[in-house]
């Protein structure tokens, strides 16, 4: 099959950009998933502390065998709140790290689309929809990049919004955070990004 890129320098250049985009997407996906894995233990810890705080507020210490211990309720509550604070601080750091990944993906994809606009005269519909055994079509690849970018953008927003919904006095809300956090993970969407990377692997590796 005739290699169209031989006669189309814009196409060649654009393909290089797309390759870089997918390489960057792959490393970003790994980075994102690794940060998210670190969040799991933090979020679980948050739920545990919330559960302990709730139990403490339910129990009347003066009616228990621990009634002789001075200021026990206040001291324990202070420690638990301190523990929550510590975890929230760490979660904040993780969110910043996730934001960096999201920004990196958005920037890459956006510049790819910008470049496409620039080259649009040389990249007509026929060129864009052409695909080979080793390379998907440009239109497909752009769509996949857009899907990936949207996924990470939404994921970040949802997770950030979940953490921001917590209220200091609402313990049951705090207790529900681990479940709601895990529920945000979409196996199917993450797998489709992996699938995308698989589909473009020949393309990315080609010269």
């Amino acid at each position, binding site marked *: 099959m005739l290699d169209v890129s031989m006669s189309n320098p814009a196409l060649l250049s654009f393909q290089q950009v797309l390759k870089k985009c997918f390489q960057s997407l792959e490393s970003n996906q790994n980075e994102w998933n690794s940060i998210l894995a670190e969040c799991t233990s933090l979020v679980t810890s948050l739920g545990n502390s919330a559960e302990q705080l709730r139990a403490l507020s339910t*129990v009347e210490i003066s009616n*228990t*065998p621990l009634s002789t*211990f001075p200021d026990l309720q206040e001291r324990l509550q202070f*420690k638990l709140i301190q523990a929550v604070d510590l975890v929230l601080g760490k979660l904040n750091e993780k969110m910043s790290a996730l934001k960096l990944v999201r920004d990196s993906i958005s920037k890459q994809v956006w510049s790819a689309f910008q470049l496409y606009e620039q080259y649009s005269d040389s990249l007509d519909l026929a060129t864009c929809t052409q695909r080979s055994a080793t390379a998907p079509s440009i239109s497909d690849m752009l769509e996949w990049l857009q899907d990936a970018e949207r996924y990470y953008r939404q994921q970040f927003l949802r997770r950030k919004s979940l953490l921001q919904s917590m209220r200091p006095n609402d313990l049951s809300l705090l207790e529900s955070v681990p479940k709601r956090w895990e529920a945000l993970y979409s196996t199917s969407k993450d797998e489709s990004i992996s699938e995308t990377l698989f589909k473009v692997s020949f393309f990315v590796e080609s010269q």
Partner: protein
Amino acid sequence: MEVTHQGRKSAVTGSARKIKDNAADWHNLILKWDKLNDEGSAVANKIVNLGLIKQDSQREQHMVMEDLASASSLIIGRPPDHSRELEEECIKLVTIVDNMTRVVSKMAKLVSSERGVVELETFQYRAEGRPPPLFLTWTTAQFAELSSKLYEAFSIELSLKKAILQELAHTTNSDLCLVYLSCWLHQPYIDHDIKLLQEGLLLETGHRTL
């Protein structure tokens, strides 16, 4: 015996040696305590879980018995007995608390040893105390006071642990169980001040440098 004043790297003797060694002992004892606390926390968790399982199975057994009473059928097999496992875990916890008791009694010895150093100093220098401090800035009395504070905190924490040990295996209220576990893990009487005092002690005696 007097402390030589040839700079901090000189050999520390006498009272200063005692206090410096005590500081190291405090550090090691607290490390030991922390390790026992972590071990105890894991065992306490197991005890509570086994206790809850036992409660559930007893409830089930009770229901089965009620069914049997109303319908004359054959006896069904008994649910698995976790009592032995529960007993083993309780024994483990008792051992851990015993070890913690030993740690705290060693701490008591450090307190009385430092009180001894203060008394010796009072005897040597009357009420004014030693002119240059033994180390950087603290008076000898301050060391004794710090030891006292540390000992008090660990002492009351130990009583709390003993109280929890008594109650843990047979408390049926799950919220109260969780409060017991919380108390054990988070050590309400070992607060941030205690950690600061410990660090201060190490810095002052030169075990840690800034």
